[in-house]
């Protein structure tokens, strides 16, 4: 869109906004933005607005009649039906698992960024679980953790037969078994992000530190950690959101038995089993609020006292 394409006589009135170069540029930008914005509105914003609308009505998901009840669903959710929020407690287990996962991912990332022989292979092995479809992984884990399943068989062949547990049947152990399945899958993803962040750390700082005689741990604490702090903070936020919204792993492995029902499972049960679309939508909106509160608190904790990041 150069000005040579527009032959407007000096002094003559420009024929419309879009005839000028800047105008045409605007038109092109707008044109490119229209399609993504339409898709975003149609598939993200509109359903979200509809979700809030649904939380204000009572509907059984089938009949054409929907009764407006205002904030009644919320009142009931925070009042007599507060038991519906109980599955959120299970998210704490996943959060604890995510913290461990983050520590492991950082550890692996630091080691693998050294350029030791074989680090490419290990990076691939650690990242592979994330590439696999989560439903397939959950189904395989279900058979793996069964009584006399894959894990038990492996322990038995290794001669560790007495260490066999009821991985899924034991009410105490089942939550950690599920967390393990989740950690196994997402470790690779966090590893990749941390690894990428580590690439941007300037190497000369390490050399200077080594000359000064700093140990590995001191190098990590004073050079690596401050550089990737922001990325770790971001991953912690992602971990929080992920653990509040976990669904596929417990749904496919235990179906919610042994008290492993998570919040999203409760929402889906409310909507499609008990036919209470209004209450389920209210629960979803409450989840969104909780997530936003958690994220805001974490951001404040990260940047508080250090000024704006």
């Amino acid at each position: 869109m150069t000005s040579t394409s527009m032959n407007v006589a000096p002094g003559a009135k420009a024929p419309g906004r879009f005839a000028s170069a800047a105008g045409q540029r605007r038109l092109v930008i707008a044109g490119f933005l229209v399609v993504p914005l339409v898709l975003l509105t149609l598939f993200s914003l509109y359903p979200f607005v509809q979700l809030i609308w649904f939380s204000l009505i009572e509907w059984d998901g089938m009949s054409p009649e929907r009764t407006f009840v205002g904030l009644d669903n919320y009142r009931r959710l925070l009042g007599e039906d507060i038991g519906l929020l109980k599955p959120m407690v299970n998210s704490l287990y996943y959060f604890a698992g995510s913290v461990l996962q983050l520590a492991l991912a950082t550890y692996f990332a630091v080691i693998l960024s050294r350029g030791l022989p074989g680090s490419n292979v290990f990076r691939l092995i650690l990242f592979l679980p994330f590439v696999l479809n989560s439903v397939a992984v959950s189904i395989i884990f279900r058979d793996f953790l069964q009584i006399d399943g894959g894990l038990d068989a492996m322990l038995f062949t290794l001669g560790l037969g007495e260490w066999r547990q009821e991985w899924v049947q034991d009410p105490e152990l089942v939550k950690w078994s599920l967390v393990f399945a989740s950690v196994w899958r997402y470790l690779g993803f966090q590893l990749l992000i941390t690894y990428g962040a580590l690439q941007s750390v300037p190497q000369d700082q390490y050399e200077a530190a080594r000359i000064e005689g700093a140990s590995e741990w001191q190098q990590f604490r004073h050079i690596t950690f401050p550089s990737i702090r922001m990325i770790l903070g971001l991953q912690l936020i992602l971990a929080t959101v992920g653990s509040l919204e976990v669904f596929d792993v417990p749904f496919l492995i235990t179906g919610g038995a042994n008290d492993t029902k998570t919040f999203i499972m409760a929402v889906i049960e409310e909507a499609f089993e008990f036919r209470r679309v209004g209450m389920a939508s209210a629960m979803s909106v409450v989840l969104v609020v909780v997530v936003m509160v958690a994220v805001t608190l974490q951001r404040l904790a990260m940047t508080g006292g250090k000024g704006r990041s």
Partner: protein
Amino acid sequence: MKSITAVALAAGLALPGASLHAQGFDPDKVKGTITFYTHFSQFVDDGRWDVWTEAFSEAYPGAEVEVVPVSGYRKDMPTRIASGDYGDVLNVLDNLPPGDYEKFYLPMNGMDMAEHHQFVDRYTVDGNVYGFVYGVNAEAMVYNKAAFERAGIEGIPTTRTELFEVCEKLKAADITPLAINMGAGWPMQQWDKAALLFADDGDYYQAMLDEPAPYSVGKPYGDTFRYVRDLFEAGCTERDYTANNWDQSRSLLGIGEIGMWFLANWSIPQAIGQAELLGIDAGPDLGMFPLPIDDDGEPSVLLNPDWAIGVARNTDNPDTAKAWVEFLLTGTDVANAAGFIPGDTRIEPAMPQLQELLDRDPPLIESGTPSTEFKQAMADARLDFMTGTYIRDVILAGDFDAALEDLNGRWERALAR
């Protein structure tokens, strides 16, 4: 006067659709293609749907039925219904309160078959018939005689004590005594039905609406859960209770690795079919006996209707749809193929194992219709009636009495609404 009545009579006879009154639909209008959403996917595999739809097209030339199998019927069909496009003939969803039937289904009044069909009242609301059942189930214990023999058990248990003894013997012979299929979820609904046996009253669900604490031990529901919990804690059930092993368990019952389960006659053809794939003829090995709930020695059998089919409210082809409903339930052997006592009383049940059960002449209890208020109360209390998840949670709960108390509390609050 006489001439007027004569004219009226003549006009009445000349009216097309005089046959409407006999059959509920007009045979001349039975044309075109209708869509039939069914949960019987096993008949797609063995080709029976093709046989039956072809027979229908022969009986009514120009009419065709497109059969669409749906798995997870209770979960998937409501979404289709909400979209407004749910075919022409489909099952009557049982988690709908009867008061809602008219919103989604067309009344099928004046049909001949209503006089020869069982449980028509269950789907009749305000004088309109909305569904006809495929058949009736005798809810009792299905057992593998060969497995019992291997464990050294003679005869069948008729009391609760004997049942637990039988379980011990089966355990000693390394056979899973009683499969409850908790991992699959839905088989736990059997214990919703068993509550009627414990109450000895087919209409107990209605009576429950006046009961503030039905889940206490001493009341039918509480006793049912205590029964299952005792079986569970005594190790009479499968070790693995989280994985969905339903498909596998059918073969296991057929070949005798599972001793018995409390399902109904429909499970027998399925077990036989699965065992056949392994090359074993399980037919003569399977039998049924009534569930021994207590020690008085004369346990009853519950007669519970299975799914009913109805016509969609917004169908374009009501006559064809109604003709298909009538043809399927009265003109084909779908009920016997599925292992039910046929809904149409003119068709004889063909299952020898069922005959064995009924020959013993056990007391029969007919299950009553759960009313709109009852279903509403169950939904308000968040107890998924006839789905089994809340029962599973009670059986697995750490503190059984506290779990029962919690259920009572939920029921009370639901009644208060």
